[in-house]
């Protein structure tokens, strides 16, 4: 068979798909829904907006112009009269709308609404004026069966339902036709037998032709063809077999001539079973008519025989009749009103009452939820109440006792304010020691007071708990195990013990835990009387009040304290931030505030092995040109005077060098007190010596140290307190002492003087220092921190180029003497630093101060802890400093 012939046999429906080219790779993804666009016949997009579901009649849609519907202008002239225009709905439609699937299709098709009257007019609604107004109700309900036009035409032509259509036939013709129909309707499976389709009825027809020749003239309507209805097979049964089919009795069309169904009652519904259920068993003989349809009514579905059923029915009927007769006693049977039939159903007037069920023996009428076995309080009692520690049971009196409140007194006459104010105090005084004494350890609740019963649900446990409290009070907690029942396991005992401890900790009186968090009112809260006079709050202490009363204002009423303005505030006020205690905090907050110059100089420092020494050295050099130089010279002058002095000084210096990074605040400890105390002694002696030497004490060094500090020290704090300490202990302050202490701290300053200080003419400053010491801004000068950051913050304008002095000192050992002595004395110093170790012993023996006897090692350690203490003392010193100042003035 060729392909062409195959193709000819097929009928094609629809439009063929585009052939897929071999090379073409089908796109992996189908176009998603949101990209699919509805288009009309001409490929125009028709739906727009609103998620492309909306129809817009705008441009290029149903309206064909950009302007939309352009109104037709009215024109009328004498020549052309305007014709009246009628608009039809079609004018507003697209051509698609009039297509086959449009809203107004213009195609020829049969309509179903040729109504019988064939009148196209609207039926005039004549409303009835009867009892029910309006349109007759039944008109809409009882509609006549609509015949199609064709049926009606056929009828008019003489056709009757049931007849076939066609020219009338005589008898013979009809028989032939019937045969044909029968043959056609006969299903033939397989190949048709040859000759079977040939006219076979010829002989039979001939025989009857003669007999009813007189009926030749009679014509018959042809038989109706049964329309061939294709019934789709939707089951898997054999062809022609109908399985049992159960459906309600009135469900389908009742086919009178079909084998009857089996009526059954199922779930109070009458169902009928159609179909064949019972085939033929293998042993049964009659297998001729396997496909015969059985009348289901022939089957019995009950055990009793038909006669019995009949009998029973009869009996039932009889009794029913009797009953009916009895009911309708007054009336005779059949004497009811005409047109009515006696109801067969018996009115079910009697309600059935059932006996209540017998209760099972152990039944309780109350529902009880099943307790979990973990639930301790399974007694069915109020658990919450038990676990509420009994506080629900407390009355105000008990509560007051727990809270250590004064017991509410039985009604007494309203107390006078004075009595009230004093009344609670004894109570409190009594109460407070009690719990403060007990608060050292677990504070158990009142023993006798069964106010707190954390284990109230288990009385024996509660009892044990109370015992435990007693034990714990007598510090015999271990006795608890003795009273615990032996049935308890070790784990249980431990657990209980910890429970008890917890409870004892928790359930101590409120005052124990929170006593310190509240301040009891000093005045009674008279909430009922809002107008009660309130005592005026008294400010200040008694001493102050008395002083103010006596108008002795001044020292008695003045309190000086420290205050730390925040950095920003100082900045806004254009004042330097004062150094204070929170300075440490400040540095903690911003541990590194590098400036570019730090790094610049760091690079230069890197060439030198020991930066701290360098710093010292540099400072000394700077100071050599300054006032310190003068002092040094004085010292030099007195250098020869005594060996003692140098011996005293040197150990201190050694310390400085051996312990350079004493700048970690955390390491400061109390031991530094020794060095603090010792220093005065040194300075004391120095000062005395100086005084001996020069015969006078210069007033001007008083202010100088501040200046030095401001310039050189990393923290003026330390030196200030140092010097102040000296002030406090020594009667006379020597400038040299200052220098010494300064140098002690010197290594902390890790950077050389720079910025404006690098080129500062300190001599010039020195000359002014006397004046400054008298000015009230001396304090401010003091606060002039020399911290590098601070300096930079306070600097304005371009920085002067710093010229760090040349440093060629390689090792630290040589630096020490140089730092202390100017160039002329350096040789001497080198010699002595060698003696340092020996000298330290000498030093201790020489010093008259008792505290100085501590070893150098001790001092070393104490050195680190210096800052803190000094800061502490600082405040006190300030006053003293002032005093000493004035003393100096007097002396000078």
């Amino acid at each position, binding site marked *: 068979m060729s392909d062409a012939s195959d193709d000819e046999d097929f009928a094609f429906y629809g439009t063929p798909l585009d052939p897929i080219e071999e090379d073409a790779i089908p796109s992996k993804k189908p176009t998603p829904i949101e990209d699919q666009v509805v288009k009309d016949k001409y490929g125009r997009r028709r739906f727009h907006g609103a998620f492309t579901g909306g129809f817009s009649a705008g441009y290029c849609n149903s309206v064909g112009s950009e302007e939309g519907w352009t109104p037709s202008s009215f024109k009328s002239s004498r020549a052309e009269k305007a014709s009246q225009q009628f608009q039809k709905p079609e004018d507003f439609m697209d051509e698609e709308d009039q297509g086959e699937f449009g809203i107004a299709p213009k195609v020829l098709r049969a309509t179903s609404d040729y109504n019988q009257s064939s009148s196209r007019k609207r039926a005039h609604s004549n409303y009835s004026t009867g009892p029910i107004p309006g349109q007759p109700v039944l008109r809409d309900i009882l509609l006549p069966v609509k015949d199609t036009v064709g049926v009606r035409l056929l009828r008019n032509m003489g056709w009757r339902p049931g007849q076939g259509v066609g020219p009338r036939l005589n008898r013979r013709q009809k028989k032939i036709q019937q045969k044909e129909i029968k043959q056609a309707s006969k299903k033939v499976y397989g190949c048709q037998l040859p000759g079977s389709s040939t006219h076979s009825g010829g002989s039979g027809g001939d025989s009857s032709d003669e007999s009813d020749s007189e009926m030749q003239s009679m014509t018959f309507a042809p038989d109706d063809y049964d329309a061939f209805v294709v019934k789709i097979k939707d089951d898997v049964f054999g062809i022609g077999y109908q399985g049992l089919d159960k459906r309600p009795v009135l469900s389908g069309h009742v086919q009178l001539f079909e084998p009857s169904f089996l009526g059954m009652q199922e779930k109070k519904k009458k169902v009928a079973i159609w179909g064949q259920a019972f085939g033929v068993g293998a042993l049964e003989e009659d297998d001729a008519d396997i496909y015969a349809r059985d009348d289901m009514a022939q089957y019995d579905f009950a055990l009793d025989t038909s006669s019995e059923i009949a009998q029973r029915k009869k009996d039932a009927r009889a009794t029913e009749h009797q009953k009916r007769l009895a009911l309708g006693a007054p009336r005779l049977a059949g004497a009811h009103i005409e047109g009515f039939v006696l109801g067969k159903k018996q009115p079910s007037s009697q309600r059935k009452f059932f006996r209540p069920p017998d209760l099972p023996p152990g039944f309780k009428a109350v529902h009880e939820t099943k307790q979990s076995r973990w639930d301790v309080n399974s007694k069915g009692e109020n658990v919450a109440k038990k676990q509420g520690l009994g506080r629900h049971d407390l009355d105000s009196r008990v509560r007051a006792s727990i809270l250590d409140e004064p017991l509410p007194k039985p009604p007494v006459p309203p107390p006078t304010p004075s009595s009230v104010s004093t009344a609670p105090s004894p109570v409190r005084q009594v109460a407070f020691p009690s719990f403060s004494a007990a608060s050292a350890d677990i504070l158990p609740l009142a023993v006798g007071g069964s106010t707190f019963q954390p284990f109230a649900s288990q009385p024996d446990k509660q009892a044990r708990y109370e015992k435990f409290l007693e034990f714990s009070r007598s510090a015999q907690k271990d006795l608890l195990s003795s009273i615990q029942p032996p049935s308890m396991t070790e784990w249980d005992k431990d657990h209980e013990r910890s429970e008890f401890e917890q409870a004892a900790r928790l359930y101590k009186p409120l005052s124990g835990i929170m006593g310190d968090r509240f301040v009891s009112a000093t005045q009674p809260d008279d909430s009922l009387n809002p107008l009660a006079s309130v005592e005026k709050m008294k400010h200040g202490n008694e001493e102050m009040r008395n*002083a*103010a009363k006596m108008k002795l204002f001044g020292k008695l009423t*003045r309190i000086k304290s420290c205050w730390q*303005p925040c950095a920003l*505030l100082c900045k806004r006020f254009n004042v330097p*931030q004062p150094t204070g205690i929170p300075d440490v905090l400040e540095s903690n907050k911003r541990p590194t505030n590098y400036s570019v110059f730090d790094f610049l100089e760091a690079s230069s420092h890197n060439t030198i092995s020991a930066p701290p020494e360098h710093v010292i050295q540099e400072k000394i050099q700077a100071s050599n040109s300054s006032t310190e130089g003068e002092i040094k010279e004085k010292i030099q002058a007195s250098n020869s005077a005594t060996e003692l002095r140098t011996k005293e000084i040197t150990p201190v210096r050694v310390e400085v060098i051996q312990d350079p990074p004493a700048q970690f605040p955390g390491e400061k400890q109390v031991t530094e007190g020794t060095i603090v105390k010792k220093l005065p002694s040194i300075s004391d002696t120095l000062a005395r010596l100086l005084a001996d030497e020069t015969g006078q004490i210069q007033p001007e060094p008083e202010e100088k140290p501040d200046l030095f500090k401001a310039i050189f020290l990393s923290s003026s704090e330390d030196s200030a307190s140092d010097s102040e300490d000296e002030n406090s202990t020594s009667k006379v302050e020597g400038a040299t002492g200052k220098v010494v202490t300064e140098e002690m701290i010197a290594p902390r300053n890790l950077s050389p003087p720079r910025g404006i200080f690098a080129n500062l003419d300190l001599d010039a400053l020195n000359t002014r220092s006397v004046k400054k010491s008298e000015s009230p801004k001396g304090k401010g000068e003091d606060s002039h921190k020399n911290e590098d950051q601070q300096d930079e913050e306070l600097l304005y304008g371009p920085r002067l180029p710093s010229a760090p002095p040349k440093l060629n000192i390689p090792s630290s050992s040589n630096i020490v003497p140089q730092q202390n002595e100017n160039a002329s004395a350096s040789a001497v110093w080198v010699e002595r630093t060698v003696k340092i170790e020996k000298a330290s012993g000498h030093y201790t023996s020489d010093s008259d101060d008792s505290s100085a006897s501590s070893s150098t090692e001790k001092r070393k350690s104490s050195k680190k802890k210096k800052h803190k203490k000094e800061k502490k003392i600082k405040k006190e010193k300030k006053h003293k400093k002032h005093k000493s100042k004035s003393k100096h003035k007097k002396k000078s």
Partner: protein
Amino acid sequence: MDIELLKTLDCNQGAVRSVRFNVDGAYCLTCGSDKKLKLWNPYRNLLLKTYAGHGNEVLDACGSCDSSQIVSCGADKTVIIWDVSTGAPLRRLRGHASNVTCVRFNEESSVAISGSHDNCVMCWDVRSRKNEPMQVLKEAKDSISSIQITNHTILTGSVDCRIRQYDLRTGDLVSDFVGEPVLSASFTGDGQCIVVGCGDECVRLFDKDSGEMLGEYSGHRTGDFRVESAVDNTDAFILSGAVDGNIWCWDMVKGEVASKLQHSPGVVVNSIHPHPSKSALVSAAGQNVKLWGKPEYLDSD
């Protein structure tokens, strides 16, 4: 004190809680109980601008050094910084927990410092846009009644009977017990003394450095009112408002009543503010503000 009444301003803004000169004394600010702040030229009796935006009574105000800004505070617990020319609130500083009773700029007007009933003094950074105070001074144990700022000292007067001097340069806090609730505290012109209006109907003069009392000025009645006291620009007279409607002037040195300026009899003169450079004065009582001074001031201005 030879000054006379020059002008009377009917502020028409309820009770005038305080009246303040601006930095050069050319204008004055009145804080009304009708939540408004008004800027006046008192010499011409001219209302220049009204600043509305407070949620409650305006209690105090201060003009900046360049007169471009005003800081005001009120019972709505806020401090507002105003733009003088536009009248718009530049910043609204919320932080106090209660009425803000007093507010001042520092000399550079870079910091506004406010005191409140919540016992706090708050330092607000005017330059930045932070809404939190730079620093809160919580030393006071009772309401702050007055604040004055010099170049590096903050002086606060508090109802806990103390005046406190916060020195920014030294980090010292000097608190002087006055014995009576402080109604107002201000430095004298030379900055060496502090004039303190006390709650016991007495104005006291204290030495700033020693805390000793230098003088007492009494005779007036303050009742339960917070009346302000001040010292005039020449440091010759101590001034104070009083319940009787007079402004009392004492000779500072002698301690005697020099004169009484009758503001309005029976109405409490609660706020006075001396002119920064001239011997002039504004005072507020009720809803009236009066300008006192010498007649030539009117002509010159």
